[in-house]
């Protein structure tokens, strides 16, 4: 992990509309720890990473291969079921399998492989540099905006463009603007079309606006999004509906009506699966940093940040979601957002194993360990989006030190 660059960019932050100070004057736990404590904490957290990396092997390789194989089998099953999508039960079963497959592919496989979590295998296919996913974001652009920008500058107001994604007010310290009155509405739209939102977000409108991005680069990036869009549209809205229509034509001995119906029902099924995946990804990802429990940081607070400080910022800025193994799998283990932010390159299957040790560190250093059930986390996120659409708003009460 790179140590943070700390050159002051206050003017940038102000230009982006952030107000400089923490609203209620509430002290963040970051300020309580001494330099020695931070260093010790860094050593402890580094040790967990080292231990896990030394232990990676056969079992982990089998896990990611099995998960990838499961995704592909789900896809095959879904596409086969949807050949008969003009029958309601097949439509339902096929759409459900396809939604699950897309969720698994984006969350547990794509996001994590592209983080480099499996690069230690030295496998040419399961590799952050060669992987591509079934979503609108081109892999390269996403890796930059997510892996580098978001994971390095997590929750720093004015530097982490994922804080509200440049279009929403999710922190009371962000200056209000009348456009935010519409944010509950466009948040709903974003939910359904999340993948397109992420793809556009990767373009970095701030940089474009400030003239930091050349025309050629912007053109190249738009072209890449275009290629991703074409791939998805051809596959989900042309190729498979046509294939299903052809199958219907053959099985119904030439009934054009059946073919037409099947084309439409398959297209609807694929569209639904894409929307289901988008809503799910949006919900899980918004629960990562926007629940009431999380802190945001000013650039002053994190100036000259040490490795220990970086770790604490990740702990305070992220929130987990409680759930069982199947839930964590479908959440791409981003329900272990805290662990993921401490160790973005650790195989996701290990987060559940190290979580008790991270909680123990939190207990001993008097730090919070943010977590809660999905309905509560998501509830607070949407409440914030509604409340902060209007002027004002205050930081919510924070949970305080973790107690088992």
């Amino acid at each position, binding site marked *: 992990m790179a140590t943070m660059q700390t050159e002051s960019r206050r003017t940038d932050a102000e230009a982006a509309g952030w107000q400089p100070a923490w609203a209620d004057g509430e002290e963040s736990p970051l300020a309580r720890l001494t330099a020695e404590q931070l260093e010790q904490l860094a050593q402890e957290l580094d040790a967990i990473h080292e231990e896990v990396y030394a232990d990676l092997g056969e079992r982990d390789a089998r896990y990611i291969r099995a998960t990838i*194989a499961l995704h*592909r089998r789900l896809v095959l099953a879904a596409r086969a079921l949807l050949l008969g999508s003009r029958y309601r039960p097949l439509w339902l079963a096929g759409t459900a399998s396809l939604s699950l497959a897309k969720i698994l592919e984006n969350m547990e496989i794509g996001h994590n492989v592209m983080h*480099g979590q499996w690069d230690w295998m030295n496998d*040419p296919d399961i590799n952050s*540099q060669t992987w*591509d996913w079934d979503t609108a974001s081109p892999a390269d652009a996403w890796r930059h905006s997510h892996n580098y920008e978001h994971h390095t500058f997590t929750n720093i107001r004015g530097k982490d463009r994922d804080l509200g994604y440049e279009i929403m007010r999710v922190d009371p310290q962000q200056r209000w603007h009348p456009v935010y009155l519409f944010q509950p509405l466009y948040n709903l739209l974003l939910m359904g079309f999340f993948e397109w939102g992420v793809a556009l977000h990767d373009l970095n409108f701030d940089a474009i606006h400030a003239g930091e991005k050349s025309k050629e680069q912007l053109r190249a990036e738009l072209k890449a999004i275009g290629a991703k869009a074409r791939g998805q549209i051809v596959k989900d809205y042309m190729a498979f509906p046509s294939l299903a229509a052809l199958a219907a034509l053959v099985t119904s001995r030439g009934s054009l009506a059946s073919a037409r119906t099947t084309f439409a029902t398959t297209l609807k099924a694929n569209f639904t699966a894409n929307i289901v995946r988008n809503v799910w990804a949006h919900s899980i990802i918004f629960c990562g940093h926007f629940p009431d429990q999380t802190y945001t940081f000013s650039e002053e607070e994190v100036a000259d940040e040490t490795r220990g400080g970086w770790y604490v910022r990740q702990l305070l800025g992220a929130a987990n979601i409680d759930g069982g193994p199947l839930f964590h799998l479908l959440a791409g283990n981003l329900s272990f957002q805290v662990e993921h932010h401490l160790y973005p390159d650790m195989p996701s299957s290990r987060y559940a194993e190290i979580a008790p040790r991270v909680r123990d560190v939190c207990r001993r250093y008097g730090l919070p360990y943010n977590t809660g059930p999905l309905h509560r986390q998501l509830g607070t996120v949407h409440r914030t989006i509604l409340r902060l659409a209007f002027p004002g708003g205050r930081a919510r009460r924070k949970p305080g030190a973790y107690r088992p």
Partner: protein
Amino acid sequence: MAERGAPPQVPRARRTALRMARSFTWPLLPDDYLELVNPLWSTRELRGRVQRVERETRDAVTVLIKPGWEWPGHRAGQYVRLGVEVDGVHHWRAYSLTSDAGRADGCIAITPKLVPQGTVSPFLFSRVRPGAIVRLGGVEGTFTLPERVPRRLLFVSAGSGITPIMSMLRELARERAMHDVVHVHSARTAEDVIFGAELRALHARAGGYRLHEQLTGVHGRLTPAGLERLCADWREREAFVCGPAGVMRAMGELWAREGERERLHVEHFQPHEYDEAQAGAGGAIRFCASGVLADAGGRESILAAGERAGATLPYGCRMGICHSCVGRLRSGRVRDLRTGRVHGQPGELLQTCVNAPEGAVELDL
């Protein structure tokens, strides 16, 4: 970037069909689904299935591999890059092909010698089972017989240096081109001679092949005088030498002194034993992309030192062949561990597996 196997020779119709199916599998490839059925069907890279593992000596095995697509062929003496997964991690190594390129069953063979502290050879020696899938990289190497096979040949091998020479002998035997071949092979004991039974049978047939086993446990090492005694006309023969660095150096000096240098062919890819002379100062390494700092001694590669310090670095063969490990040099000088040459310009791409820092270096990795 992680190394991949060689692109296989796939029939054109199949390639076209797969290309057309890509609209249905995007952003994956049809291969990704076909591999669920059989991983050998990959058209992205050539893979092979281990057919048999045969014990040769107490520390060498022959691994017989059936390629998934038709074997593109090789010249006797060449090596193949082999990718195997050990404990979840892919490793690439180069091994001399010991099989005859004209094998009827289409299989290829390699004969690794056990390096107990290594990673891949212990795996091939005792853990790999028939049915295992391996990746097959390119066939490389210039240590091969000339187009027109000379009538008089001399082979000097030692230990596992027999491996590239074995495929030459098998080819010569198949093509009945074994006119006048002298083979001096060094091993500690008779049991340590890899392919001992086959070599002795070839010798017993008296078909133009004469074998001398230099058992170093009894006779000591092969000396120039010893070679003179065993093969008085060595100067007139086309010679092929493969073995540990000591043997290579001694023979190289002998041919330079008394023979004709262009008649001597040597295989360089055998594991290097770095000379004291090639060890340099070592130094501190900064990997700029990851921020990792490492220190390397004069004989440790940048790659090894970086891995020891916890950096995740690209790598392949780890012996200076495949260029999977290259990184851009930002500043500093490095020493090539194979030759001792000190080099390095800012912006130069260098192989981290065979270069050690010579003073402080920075790399864009």
